[in-house]
Each structure stands twice: as C-alpha cells, then as structure tokens.
C-alpha cells in the first residue's frame, strides 16, 4: 500500500473510516441475521452513529474504560471487542463473549476495558463514574467514558453522576450520542434543559459537535480526553448523530416524519468520510478492497458463530456466583 505518500490527516481518516465501516458492515449483517431469525431478542442498531465510538476510542487505551448503551455494538467494536466472540454472543452461543447469557444489551469485554452494555437507560453512567473512581485511586492516568443517549438525560442517576464526578474530580468524559429520539419520543419532549447548561452547572468543559465529520470529531475528542487525563476534571461531549434504523430492528418507525427519513442519506458519517477520502486522492479500488476485507472477516466470524455450540444450561447455572 502506498501509505507513505499520504498526509497524516488522510492516514488518520482512513483509520477512522475503517473502524466506522467495520461497525456499519457488522450491523448490516446483524440486521439481516435478526430478520432471518438467527439473532433473537431485541437489537438496537447504531447505523448512522458510527463516528462517535470510532473517534472516541481512537484516543483510548485498553486500560481506559467505557460503559456502553443498549445501542452499543459500535461502541463495543471500536473499543476492540473480539468479533468472533461478539457475533457468537449475538447468536447466543457458548463461545459468545458472555457465554450466550447477555446478548446484544449486555456485551462486555473486560480485557479491552469495556465495562458492559446496559439494558437500563442511564444505568451504565454511574458505573463508569465508579470506574473513574477506580482509575483515580489507581493513579495511572486512565479515564472512563460513559456513553449515553439523549433519552438518558432525564434519569435522576445521570444528574447524581455529574455531581459526584465534579465534586470528586473524577476522570471521565461523558459522551452523549444525541440522535434526537428516545425510542419513539423526541428529545425535546423529554428534557427541558440542555447538556450545555448542565455542564455549566457542574463546572465542566462542554463541547457540542455534529458527528457527521469523524475527523473533526476525533480532533475534538482527542483534545478533551487529553484534558480529562491531565486535569482529572470531568467533561461532557455532545455529539449530534442520526439514527438510520428504527429504535429496535423491526420498528416500523411510523412516528418519524417522512422528511426526516428521506434525509438520512445526507447524515451518514461513513459516506461523508468516504467522499473525503476520495477527494484526498485515495483510489476507489483501495476502499473497495478495504470493504471486501471487512466483509470477509465478518463472513468468517459469522460462520464460526453459526457453527458454535449452544451453551450448556448447567454451566450457566453454575455461573451465578463467583
């Protein structure tokens, strides 16, 4: 690959694009696997929101921790969850990252600092703040990132979390993926304040960004994460994103204005990055090849997951206590 001639920003963008595209392709596959019944339960796709975890995790190490949401596949994949174990979990197999016990809403991978997805809206936020407390006690300069949706802002525990993080100078970056919707309800019908004002209340740095441009987002996230590490002051990063699919797969989205649905194409961080890469001179063939590689990886992972054993009940029953 002729990467040597490329500018640093282009190389960076290519890496972020790769992360995003991989999330996209995995979730597209999940969508199909859900539709054909291979994946049971509920799944919430983050298609359209991939730039956020791609940009955030670019600046994190495996010792930094993230708590992810019900819409967390991208957050998990970006943090480095093993794809085989991830897909096997989605299919409820014994080789799944949670041995088939958790599924989409509970994927976790402690080996890469992923504290676990949460089926409770806002549930992961204070847990991540507790992780930040552990980081503070460790004194190694690690940070914690609680991801959350705009809907989580109404939950009391979020506000308790802001308070204690500020009061105790806990190293965490609160990252909101604001997609304008909490299930079938608009954010504006749910919260009368704003994250910006909350950040001011708790004396935290606050930044808002349209997450369409992953490179810009990465720059901002990098600056903020550096500051959190250095000062141990918590901060809030609000990312405007667009949810391309329904709240859950199978959601007919009747509540959503047709106009909004028609405009999704223009709100896609993956194609936005693609266009920028082409403009920067990356040949189409290279991006096609990248896509092919990702698809091949996914094909292989899906195949191993489909072939994997189902978990044994007795083994699960023996795993309730440590």
């Amino acid at each position: 690959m002729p990467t040597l001639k490329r500018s640093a920003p282009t190389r960076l963008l290519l890496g972020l694009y790769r992360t995003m595209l991989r999330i996209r392709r995995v979730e597209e596959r999940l969508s199909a696997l859900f539709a054909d019944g291979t994946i049971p339960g509920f799944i919430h796709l983050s298609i359209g929101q991939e730039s956020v975890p791609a940009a955030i995790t670019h600046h994190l190490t495996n010792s930094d921790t993230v708590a992810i949401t019900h819409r967390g596949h991208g957050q998990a994949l970006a943090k480095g969850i093993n794809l085989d174990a991830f897909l096997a979990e989605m299919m409820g197999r014994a080789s799944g990252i949670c041995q088939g016990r958790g599924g989409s809403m509970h994927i976790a991978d402690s080996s890469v600092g992923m504290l676990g997805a949460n089926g409770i809206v806002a549930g992961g936020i204070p847990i991540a703040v507790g992780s930040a407390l552990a980081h503070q006690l460790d004194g190694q300069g690690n940070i914690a990132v609680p991801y959350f949706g705009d809907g989580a802002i109404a939950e009391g525990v979020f506000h308790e979390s802001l308070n204690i993080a500020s009061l105790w100078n806990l190293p965490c970056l609160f990252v909101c993926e604001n997609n304008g919707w909490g299930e079938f309800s608009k954010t504006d019908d749910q919260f009368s304040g704003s994250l910006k004002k909350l950040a001011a209340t708790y004396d935290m740095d606050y930044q808002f960004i349209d997450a369409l441009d992953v490179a810009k987002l990465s720059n901002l996230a990098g600056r903020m994460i550096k500051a959190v590490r250095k000062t141990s002051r918590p901060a809030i990063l609000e990312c405007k994103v667009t949810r391309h699919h329904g709240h859950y797969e199978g959601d007919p989205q009747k509540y959503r204005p047709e106009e909004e649905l028609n405009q999704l194409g223009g709100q896609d961080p993956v194609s936005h990055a693609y266009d920028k890469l082409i403009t920067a001179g990356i040949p189409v063939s290279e991006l096609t090849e990248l896509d092919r590689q990702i698809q091949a990886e996914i094909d292989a992972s899906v195949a191993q997951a489909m072939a994997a054993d189902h978990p044994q009940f007795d083994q699960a029953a023996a795993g309730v206590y440590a």
Partner: protein
Amino acid sequence: MNNPQISEETETLRFGQALNRALGDAMRADDRVFLMGEDIALAGGPFGVTRKLLDEFGQRRVRDYPIAEASMVNLAVGAALGGYKPVVEIMFMDFCTLAMDALVNQAAKAHFMFGEQGPVPLVLRTPHGGGLNAGPQHSQCLEAWFAHIPGLIVVCPSNAADAYGLLRAAIDNPNPVVFVENKRLYSAKSEFPANPQPIEIGKARTARSGSDLTIVTYGNTVHLAEQVAKQRADQNIDIEIIDLRSLQPWDETAVLTSLSKTHRLIVLHEATEAFGIGAEIAARMADIGFDELDAPIIRVGAPFMPVPYSVALEAEFGPNAEQLNTAIDRLLL
C-alpha cells in the same frame, strides 16, 4: 360459579386488547383517570396496550413521560393525593427497581401513616416474564417484592377477560395496585364477555376442577398447568387448577378448599422459586392446611439464576411441562 364474567355471548379478544379496552372504559367512566408512561401516548405503548387512547382522550389524560421512573411514580402519588386516579406504566418490571421508593415508602404507606386522611388510588401496570430472549434485565418477575409490602395490592391476570375485569377493579380500588402483565400473554386470544365487569380483587378462579392434585398458579403459567393437566387427564390423573389472579391479598380460602379436596399441592410460577410468591402459599398451607396434606408441597418456579439470553438457555430455564410433570409424578406415583 367461578367465571361470572364469561356469559354465553362471548367473543375472543387478545389480552393486550382487553387491557386497552379496560383503560378506555375506565377513562370514559371517570374523568379523574389519566395515564402516564414512557412512549404510551404517541406510540401507543411498547406492547400496544395504550394504542389510540391519545386520539380519544388527548394529551391531558394520556401523557408521555420522560425516561425517569422514580419521579413518574412519585408524581402519580401526588396526583392521587390530589384526587386523581393515575394509571402509570413501567415499561418492563425490571425498571420498577427505579421506582421502589415511590411505591414502597410513599404509595404503600401514605394511607396508614397519615392516619387515613386519604387514599392513594394509583395503578402501576408493568410487564414481567421471559420468553422473548430479552435477557437478564428485561425478563424478571418481581411480584413477590410487592406482595411483601403492607399497603400494596398485587394482581396478575392470566387471560383477556380477567385482564379487563381486574384492571377495571384495580382502577376503581382506592389503594395502590401493582398490576402485573405477562409479556407472552399480550397477543394471546381468549374468550371475552359481551358485557365485561370488574372482577373482585382477592378472589381466585378455579381454572380446572379436579380431585387428585391441586396446582396453584397465576399469570402465564396457568396455561402451562392447563396444558399439562389435559395431558395427564388421559392417564386418569385429575388435576385441579387454581388461578390466583390476586397475589396480595391472595385467596387463602380457595386454596385451602381445594387442598382439602385433593390433599396434594403444587405451586407453580414463572418467578424465581426461592423466596417467590409460591413460598408464601406453601408456607401458609404447611400451617393452616397441614392436616389436609398427604404429601410434600412442591414448588415449581424458575431456577436460581438470572434469566439468560440465548434461545438454548432460556428454553431450559423453565418452568416447563417437564418440570411440572416431574413434580406431579413425585406426588402421585
């Protein structure tokens, strides 16, 4: 007659539709009744129970609430003290964990603790149970918690007619009622009377008469009991099924009467067996029903583990026909 509400002119109706009808009828009958919940208004509720009610009753009485369960139930307490009859929905019973203060320290105690100055007529509707591969935080059956709390009423219907009748009764009741709906039942059809009426809280229903053995159960496992009882009837095992309908208060007389006939008792429910509803039924019968018992009391409930996600695990999780049959065999063979 155990089923006064089922007359000859019956249609069939889905469980969820029966709840929807009960809410609509209650709101028409009493304009102090109003609804609050997450995504219940515009979206009609995650399981469609509140569908179309916004159209008829408007935003004043059908209210989408932010994702903030603790304040929602507390607001309902305040509105109830102010003379209204709020019916709130907690989207999954697992999320009741966020509203326990409102229910247990406030709603349950206000009438007693303030010296009977006024009741707290609120209903909290919430779905429990597994079967949707929804995993450990979206499948729990926590009704035993509420049944333990003096001041709360707990109800759990097994069919459309009871769903209607008990929900009307719950809304009419001046006390806080936790109204538990099994998720697997929402789309189940069953007989529905032409002129449905409230059903008295605290009265069980004999879902099947029999003489050899009593199964006490409620909610979705009533159907499991019925299915197994039907199969065992071929082997001349004649099983009586008591559908509790109300869990607090529960119909001690009905259970004791049945036990006095069959002398053998199984308590069956979807909730975790340990410290579940069945423990109280069994314990009570081991006291007041001791002389009637010809055999151990057996409970069949969920094993002591969180509800697992995978299809393979959840299928074995139970309670299922095999476990129930094993219990029957232990008592009769």
